[in-house]
């Protein structure tokens, strides 16, 4: 919204200038010839103010972004999907994702109901649970996890990355720390965590971000290295601005777009690694459906043509979310690149 307001102001200024020009010269247009050839006098404001260009970084970024049809459509679709995932339980007629439909004849649950039958939109799994409900619940869980992982990575990664990049003395320490963290297999850490604290959304978030922040930090650090010695930072140091404010006001604003891109990519990555974590048996409890455990369940029956739907639907949702975030993130980073602000 900010850029809109700025636009407003710009328009006012421009209008003022137009008026100024129009007032003087327009009045002169009707003057007799001899009058025309007399000095017009000099107005400092008129000279100074004409240089206004209505370039606003965020304005242009968003404009460029909204030019990208596919990204906008995907964004709308993504918002719709996410909103639906979170609203779905409140809609009427939705099944409990953990409810097993029971065959009244035997008292035993139904098995593998095909999609579309008996009101099971996306069918059921082997114990009669409604996949429609489970997949949306799973999308909720996975998105929540991904969101928090991205958030934690961003907060921790940025803090550490800034320190790492900005404070020269820390570089060696963090570089070596990075080398070490990067080479300790995350599986070991995940397994240890899952042993210490039983698998839950929280531990999963912890487990993923505990290994993920360092990559983010390194990324930020590299970015900081590029801009840390630019003149405007030197200038700030010259006038005694404390480091914290330099970071906050001078460095971070430049990183916003890359950080956003990075976060947009972290979300699909986190969902992807949840699938992997579930694959190696460290995933969430069945009570909390997630795309990871749904896909993993689906995988097991995938060779069976009639049951493939159990893999298909969660994969579609997952792929859609991933593609959407990926393309939107990329479109956004393209849009955030001032080089692309020409059109």
């Amino acid at each position: 919204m900010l850029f809109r307001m700025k636009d407003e102001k710009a328009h006012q200024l421009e209008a003022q200038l137009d008026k100024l020009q129009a007032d003087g010269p327009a009045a002169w247009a009707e003057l007799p010839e001899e009058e025309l050839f007399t000095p017009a006098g000099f107005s400092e404001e008129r000279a100074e103010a004409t240089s206004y260009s209505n370039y606003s970084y965020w304005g242009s970024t968003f404009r460029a972004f909204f030019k990208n049809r596919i990204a906008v459509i995907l964004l709308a679709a993504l918002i719709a999907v996410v909103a639906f995932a979170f609203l779905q339980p409140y809609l009427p007629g939705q099944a409990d994702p953990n409810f097993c439909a029971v065959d009244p004849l035997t008292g035993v649950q139904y098995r593998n109901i095909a999609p579309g039958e008996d009101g099971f939109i996306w069918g059921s799994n082997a114990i009669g649970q409604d996949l429609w409900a489970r997949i949306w619940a799973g999308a909720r869980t996975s998105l929540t996890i991904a969101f928090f992982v991205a958030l934690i990575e961003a907060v921790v990664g940025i803090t550490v990355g800034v320190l790492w990049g900005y404070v020269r003395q820390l570089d060696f320490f963090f570089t070596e720390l990075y080398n070490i963290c990067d080479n300790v297999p995350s599986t070991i850490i995940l397994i240890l965590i899952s042993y210490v604290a039983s698998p839950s959304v929280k531990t999963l978030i912890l487990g993923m971000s505990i290994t993920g922040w360092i990559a983010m930090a390194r990324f930020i650090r590299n970015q900081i290295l590029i801009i840390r010695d630019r003149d405007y930072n030197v200038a700030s140091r010259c006038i005694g601005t404390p480091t914290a404010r330099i970071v906050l006001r001078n460095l971070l604003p430049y990183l916003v777009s890359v950080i956003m891109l990075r976060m947009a990519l972290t979300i699909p990555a986190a969902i992807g690694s949840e699938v992997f974590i579930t694959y190696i048996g460290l995933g969430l409890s069945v009570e909390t459906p997630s795309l990871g455990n749904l896909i993993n369940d689906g995988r097991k029956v995938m060779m069976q043509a009639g049951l493939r739907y159990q893999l298909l639907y969660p994969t579609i949702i997952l792929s859609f979310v991933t593609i959407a975030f990926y393309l939107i993130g990329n479109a956004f980073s393209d849009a955030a690149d001032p080089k692309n602000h020409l059109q």
Partner: protein
Amino acid sequence: AGLLTGCGGSSSGSASGAASSGSSYTILYDSQPATLNYLTTGTDLEMVVGANCVDTLVEYDNKGVMREGLATSWDWDADTLTWTFHLREENWVDCNGEVVAPVTAQDFVDALKYVLTPDYAASNVGLVTGYIAGADDYYSYHVYLNNANTGVVDEDGTTYTVDADGVVTVAAPGADPATYAPVDFEAVGVTAVDEHTLTYTLTYDFPGFLSLLCYLPYEPAYGPLLEETGDQFATSAETTYSCGAFYLAAYESLETWVMKKNPENYDAANVFIDTISRIYNAEASVNGPEMIKRGEIDEATIGSDILDSWLADDTTKDMVSMDRPNTNYTYFYMFNFMPFSHEFSNWSVEGMDAEYEPENWAKAINNTNFRKSFLYGINNSVTLAVKAPEGYDNYKLNTITPPSFCANADGVDYLKCGDLANITEFFDEAKAKEYRDAAIPELTAAGVTFPIKVQLPYNPSSTDWDKQCQVLKQQLEGVLNDGFDFINIVITAGPSDSFLSSVRRNGKFAFLLCNWGADYSDPQTETDPFYQAEGARGSRYAFLRTGVEDGFITGDTADAVMNYMKAIEAAVEITDDINARYDAFANAEASLINNALVVPMGMSVPAYIATRLNYWEGQYASTGFSNKRLKGIHVLDHYVSMSEYEANRDAR
């Protein structure tokens, strides 16, 4: 004594169906043995080597009747507690099928010595030290000696020292130091009288001993090879000698595992498969069914989740049958009577997390009506149906001990002995509600708040357990919460590794599905999870006696527990009258169940498989590894269908 003396051998060579002799057979597996060392292993899968490549002194037929094996005859001397076995002529062969040496009585002695050497960390030592005279002393001494030699100090500060004579002193802080004099292996009750005569001397008159013999630590191993290879024994096909129906031809961990028919075996005429290859594939549950369809393998497991789709499909419906059921494991639910953090002799228990309200649970669990509402409220059919979509009721159990586990002198099945005979199906919604309604005021009086949280953990790496929990939750809550918000079952996923130590041994559950596998054919083995000797604070299952001793279990529940303990102690003493013994055990077990100290669930559901073997031809025993023997089984030219399976079962 001498309850189960030698029976004549009746080899059933009746091959049903069109058997193709001289065949090879390929099985797809999702796990492979980590070791071939049958003397030290304890896992089901690894027993396959011991079962097929090494003969045991005794064997079973396909109905579960014991018969002679490597021993042609045996006798029992009740006075000296000595069993004497007479061995037949038999040879060791190497991985190429070439004869290396004859099998002698000394091979059994050497094998047992190997098992009792702490360095080799054999996992079945308990099956030796408990019964063979001198074995426990020998083993403990060597453990302590090792500790002394390496200067181990236990966590509680116990130190070990050895003097010049080899006497080991174990000094635990706050206790008098105990000394252990050196023990020779000679003192262990196993002797090779001559090449073909072997004797075992027991510590006490133990009725199940013969059934123990069909188990790993009592198998022979070629002494010089053990000597030569030490801990490298049976790490590869080259370091393994076989004397069984098959010999181990090739083995590479997580790759190949090939066993071939051993023509040198005395019973080679009854071996109908030439080569058995087991192929490893981590994704066998996904690939196996497909490979069966494509004809790439002969046998694979068909997961219960795709079973109905196989049965529904005309091309596959006749290709799927089941593994032969075995009662090696039975399942039951246990309550956690001590959900708080507390100390045991050698480990500490964290107890349930606060979010699962351990205080509330601890109060509730001492109420017999509360437990009984579970006992009567649970419909085991629904959970079993997860694993066995077809015929789930066949696997239901209302006892801990499975049917046909053992029979008394009159041939009466153990389950028909004593009070067990009166136990029938528990599930009864009306009754469950009655107990619940009775429990509500009592619980309220005790300060319990409703709904009572019930933490129900499962191990994610165990197939279908998660689904079973979900089904159980829904079913039980459906019964007990009808009209009153009684319980709230919270399903939690345990870690897939070290599940037992972090969940069960750590007290992090309220209600948990457990299992127990019998070691030998005597009801005593089924008491192991529950029975605790006085002062024994270390049993790894239910800590019932400890719970009473520490004041966790109170009131009539405590009485029930103590009665059970006393009943077991009395039953164990009865060794001369098998009927009385069985009745005593049966009464005890019935009291355990009727007091809802444990809730029976079922037996292992045999896996659905696509197979061309008629497993009903194979050997059968309720304990040990006999079921894994492929001797006597024919390879069919077609897959066994469900109906054929049933026909075979009935024809057995």
